[in-house]
């Protein structure tokens, strides 16, 4: 396969609402920022991949039709990707496939979201449950993860303070990132005192509904050489899926526990094997992992093998995973917990990871970062994407 690198990443300064632009104009902002960062124009782009999560969140059916001109994709091969919360990263993996196959040299991934416009995101997200068996129960993306958080606490003798430690770390990181949505530092006490949404998840554990755009540009190794570019190289990718039924993730005969993210761990293993990562804690400098709620980050750190199962809270208490601490830094951007424009959240994970290994993130830069990982989760912990990025193509030892 052909080596693929990322040569550009653009993102908005995320906020709750944007009334100065239409949705397609917002998508164009993501495309323009990514192309400008890459130092190319739309004329240099061979194909476009567009991430968009459920249509009902933006209130326009087949939103890919609406934004085709905003992306500059007319006259070019085009695909829309929807994989729930993993959408923004699945789109990058689709673009990777386009380039790695040798078919295209330059592929643009760009999109946007404005989650708050629907006024009832959880009402939209409730529609993803089974019409016969589950729709009379008010499940949504908060309750599904509250269930997981309760099992994690039960299995590993963890508590709500452990979750609060994640928020405190991510808000501290986000305060250094001018593009993040929630940038105000917060204390453990403030998180614990925030109102309960679905126990044990409180407002202080939750991501915001963000508005803004993002995009990345992927190129082939031959294109990079021809144009003297220094991309962030994609050294490994992984994907995996998990059963629809949450009730099949408990009990003696289940394949994995809803407390953990075993299927995600498998996706990380696939990417690590491709990249030659054998000792994640010592070989990985930075992780941009998708976790919309504090509780999710605990088990994603463990799925990435940056801590043993049930041990990420202990690491956090010892100052690990934090900028300035020892070992891999987790979500130096503030992560999904501080910025969640659903369609492009996964794109931001990849873009931030790429900028980290190129040493160009700014105040939240991890010093001398060479190897980064990114991941995303879609559906009800169902669709998993992982990636390893590196500043060079040398062996990762």
């Amino acid at each position, binding site marked *: 396969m052909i080596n693929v690198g990322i040569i550009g990443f653009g993102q908005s300064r995320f906020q709750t609402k944007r009334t100065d632009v239409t949705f397609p104009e917002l998508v164009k902002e993501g495309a323009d920022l990514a192309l400008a960062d890459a130092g190319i124009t739309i004329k240099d782009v061979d194909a476009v991949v567009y991430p968009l999560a459920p249509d009902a969140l933006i209130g326009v059916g087949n939103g890919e039709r609406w934004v085709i001109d905003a992306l500059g994709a007319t006259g070019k091969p085009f695909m829309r990707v929807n994989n729930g919360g993993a959408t923004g990263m699945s789109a990058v993996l689709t673009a990777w496939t386009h380039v790695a196959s040798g078919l295209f040299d330059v592929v643009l991934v760009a999109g946007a979201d404005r989650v708050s416009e629907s006024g009832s995101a959880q009402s939209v997200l409730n529609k993803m449950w089974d019409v016969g068996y589950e729709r009379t129960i008010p499940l949504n993306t908060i309750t599904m993860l509250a269930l997981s958080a309760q099992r994690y606490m039960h299995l590993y003798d963890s508590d709500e303070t452990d979750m609060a430690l994640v928020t405190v770390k991510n808000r501290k990181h986000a305060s250094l990132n001018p593009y993040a949505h929630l940038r105000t530092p917060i204390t453990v006490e403030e998180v614990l005192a925030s109102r309960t949404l679905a126990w044990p998840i409180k407002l202080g554990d939750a991501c915001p509904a963000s508005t803004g755009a993002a995009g990345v540009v992927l190129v082939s190794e031959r294109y990079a050489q021809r144009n003297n570019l220094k991309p962030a190289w994609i050294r490994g990718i992984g994907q995996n899926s998990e059963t629809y039924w949450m009730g099949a993730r408990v*009990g003696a*005969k289940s394949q994995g526990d809803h407390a953990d993210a075993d299927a995600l761990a498998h996706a990380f293993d696939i990417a690590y094997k491709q990249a030659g990562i054998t000792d994640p804690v010592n070989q990985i400098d930075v992780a941009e992992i998708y976790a919309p709620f504090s509780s999710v980050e605990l088990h994603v750190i463990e799925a990435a093998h940056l801590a043993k199962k049930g041990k990420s809270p202990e690491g956090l208490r010892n100052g690990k995973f934090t900028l300035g601490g020892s070992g891999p830094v987790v979500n130096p951007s503030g992560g999904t917990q501080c910025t969640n424009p659903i369609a492009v959240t996964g794109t931001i994970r990849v873009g931030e990871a790429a900028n980290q290994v190129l040493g160009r993130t700014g105040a939240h830069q991890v010093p001398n970062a060479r190897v980064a990982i990114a991941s995303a989760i879609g559906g009800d912990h169902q669709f998993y994407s992982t990636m390893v990025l590196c500043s060079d193509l040398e062996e990762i030892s």
Partner: protein
Amino acid sequence: MTTNKNASAKDGSSERFYEQTWDLQYKHALGRTVSRFLDGLAEGKIWGRRTTDGRVLVPARSYDDLTHEETGEWVEVANNGVIEMSTVVYEAFNGLPKPPYALAYVMLEGADTALVGYVKGLDLSVQSVAIEAVKIGSRVHVCFAKTPTGTAADYWFELDATS
């Protein structure tokens, strides 16, 4: 039917907004397997289906999510079991019921996968008391609607009386 109107921005700026409502009606076919499960609720029964490797999937599914094979025999499981995971919701969400309410996945005796439902009949006003009542391992039983609607709303869980 949609409701449309244009409105000027409150601050007098030239930015305008367009309001719409999606009001779509669906009639979903539930198929034979789900329909039989729902019929069972009117008789006070919870039905599962046995997989080729002997697990009992509840609620009944016609195929196995792990092996991709069709399930076979219908198995009636017990009406009592244990909470495997739960949450108590205190936040109001547009279009969803008024809080507070408790939800749980319950492993009924004889089943190998857990069934989701409301946990009713307990006081949720004090959070610490409510979450302790529905903690993992709490014993519950299934209750059935006196007037069945033919939907999954025809059953819920209640805590077993503590002896």
